């Protein structure tokens, strides 16, 4: 045993030193390093190309919009007004900027503004809480609700709300879809009982799910003054996204390898044991594939549902900025777009790594 431990330690050391060895020693590994540099380089170049395309594209759109504005002033109000318009546009004043696709630089500035804004709001909140500390203490002592900060949320708060909603929805989907999927997968009888339901409700659009949940939750919340936007949005997200998990779980459970079932029979496992020790473990890879799809669908429909439910998340942010039409609204929308994309990517990677952890090759035991 002691020898084994020593061996393991040696191995670890080797692994630690490997990167250094790769750089300094072997020739083949030098090539590998070069290859990885090349790969990173290609990615960087493609990002640069994308930014350039974006920059010049937005400039072209800007010029088109500007010349349209100047021409409009010329035909409608005459030369003096047109000159004034041109001067205003090229002076860079906020009031007369053409409203079009923002350039990468504008988006970057907006991002910094949004983050700075977060610290301003955070400070405000702190001041508010300090001011209300005594009052709140008295209110709580009387058994009343304390006064909370009701100012506008910062961009970071908005992102956190969205993440919270998507996780609540995902959890709901998991709790509904996995058990039902297992039950349906186990019994062909129940499968035919449920199949019409799944087939009809699977393709229903997120907007309609929202309306359905709204109808129900609105009535349930009668007499309750608390905000139900969060509840409505997470339930809608969960119901909308759970189908992939439901179908995959049912399929995984129904298609357990016959060899494993034979093992269960030969060992004479009881029904409970058979389900929990053979059927569920062997369908875990498919269940997690379903959950991964569910999470990405949940994140995708979240934006539309938040918009409808007026839940203070990214969906509502995007829509409000669009309605706002302020000078920097468009660039804020693009910031939100990138944030949505990056978080979606991270969530998918997170699920992928879990999926790989529980996966096994079907032939590994055979």
């Amino acid at each position, binding site marked *: 045993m002691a020898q*084994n431990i020593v061996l393991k330690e040696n191995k670890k050391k080797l692994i630690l030193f490997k990167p250094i060895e790769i750089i300094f020693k072997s020739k083949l590994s030098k090539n590998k390093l070069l290859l990885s540099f090349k790969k990173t380089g290609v990615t960087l170049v493609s990002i640069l190309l994308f930014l350039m395309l974006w920059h010049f594209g937005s400039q072209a759109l800007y010029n088109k919009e500007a010349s349209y504005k100047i021409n409009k002033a010329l035909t409608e109000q005459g030369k003096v007004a047109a000159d004034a318009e041109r001067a205003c546009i090229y002076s860079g004043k906020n009031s007369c900027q053409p409203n079009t696709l923002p350039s990468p630089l504008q988006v970057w500035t907006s991002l910094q503004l949004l983050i700075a804004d977060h610290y301003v709001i955070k400070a405000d909140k702190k001041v508010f809480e300090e001011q209300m500390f005594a009052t709140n203490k008295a209110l709580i002592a009387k058994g009343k609700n304390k006064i909370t900060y009701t100012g506008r949320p910062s961009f970071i708060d908005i992102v956190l709300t969205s993440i919270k909603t998507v996780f609540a929805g995902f959890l709901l989907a998991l709790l509904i879809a996995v058990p039902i999927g297992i039950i349906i997968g186990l019994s062909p009888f129940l499968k035919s009982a449920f199949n019409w339901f799944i087939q009809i409700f699977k393709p229903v659009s997120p907007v309609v799910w929202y309306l359905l949940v709204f109808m129900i939750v609105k009535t349930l919340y009668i007499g309750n003054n608390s905000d139900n936007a969060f509840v409505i949005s997470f339930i809608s997200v969960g119901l909308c996204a759970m189908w992939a998990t439901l179908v995959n779980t049912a399929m995984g459970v129904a298609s357990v390898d016959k*060899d*494993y079932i*034979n*093992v269960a*029979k*030969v*060992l*004479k*496992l009881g029904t409970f*044991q058979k389900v929990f*020790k*053979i059927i569920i*473990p*062997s369908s*875990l890879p498919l269940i997690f594939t379903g959950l991964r799809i569910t999470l990405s669908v949940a994140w995708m429909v979240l934006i539309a549902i938040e918009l409808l439910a007026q839940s203070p998340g990214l969906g509502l942010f995007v829509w409000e900025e669009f309605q706002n039409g302020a000078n920097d609204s468009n660039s804020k929308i693009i910031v939100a777009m990138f944030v949505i994309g990056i978080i979606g990517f991270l969530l998918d990677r997170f699920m992928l790594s879990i999926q790989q952890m529980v996966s*096994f*090759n*079907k032939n*590994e*035991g*055979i």
Partner: protein
Amino acid sequence: MAYLELKNIYKNYGLGNTTTEVLSNINLSIEEGEFVAIVGFTGSGKTTLVNLINGLITPTSGQVLFKGKEVKGTSHERGVIFQNYSLLPWLTVSQNIFMAVKEAFPKETKTVLNDIVAMYVEMVGLTPAINKRPKELSGGMRQRVAVARALAMKPEMIVMDEPLGALDALTRGNLQDEILNIWEKDKRTALLITNDVDEGIYMADRIIPLRPDPKATLGPEFKIDLERPRDKTALNDNINFKNTRNAIIEYLMDIGNERKVEAQEQILLPEIAPKSFVGYF
């Protein structure tokens, strides 16, 4: 009374017009402590026969009797070593065996069960790999785990369905010896299904060829009068071994030739030729 007895077994698959008779009129009896091998071509219904004995499937007609009682469903009294190991890939070696042991001895405490697991893992020489998962093991090691799992349940009879079929010749030889050693220790009744005549002769007391399907049935049995423990290298020069081997192979070859003749029967095709479109358009 025989320990395991198959009486007039017929087994059909499919219904109505598509019925195929896989096994036909199978009669077999095995005495306690005996090591019997059934040899046959691949696809001759060997696995069906094993599953009948295990109780995984039921015969269309006829009876499988184990210790005088009809076999209904699987039982811990008959341990099975599957052709494709059938280990659970999400469990480690010890967990795979533990699961079986726990089912076989539900009343024992966990420490006792763990001791049994450790004992059988050591018996098949896998102690260093006890916490590995099947995917980290080679084919031979996986089969050893399957052997340990079957034996750890202390069955009264072991049924092996081509247990070494997927292994290379060297590993195969080693495992044959190991299985024989274990068998000789407590002389449990054993039934080996194999497609390797040499393996059958080396390991078994009796060899029965299975005539291939459709309508597979058992052929005449061959007794093997070789002293145990048998020496593999010495066997090659043993006149008795040679004769038995030749007899069995001749028998199987004859069946194979019969099959070929059947397959060569000519089918008369109607005389038709493609229509000529010359000058048609």
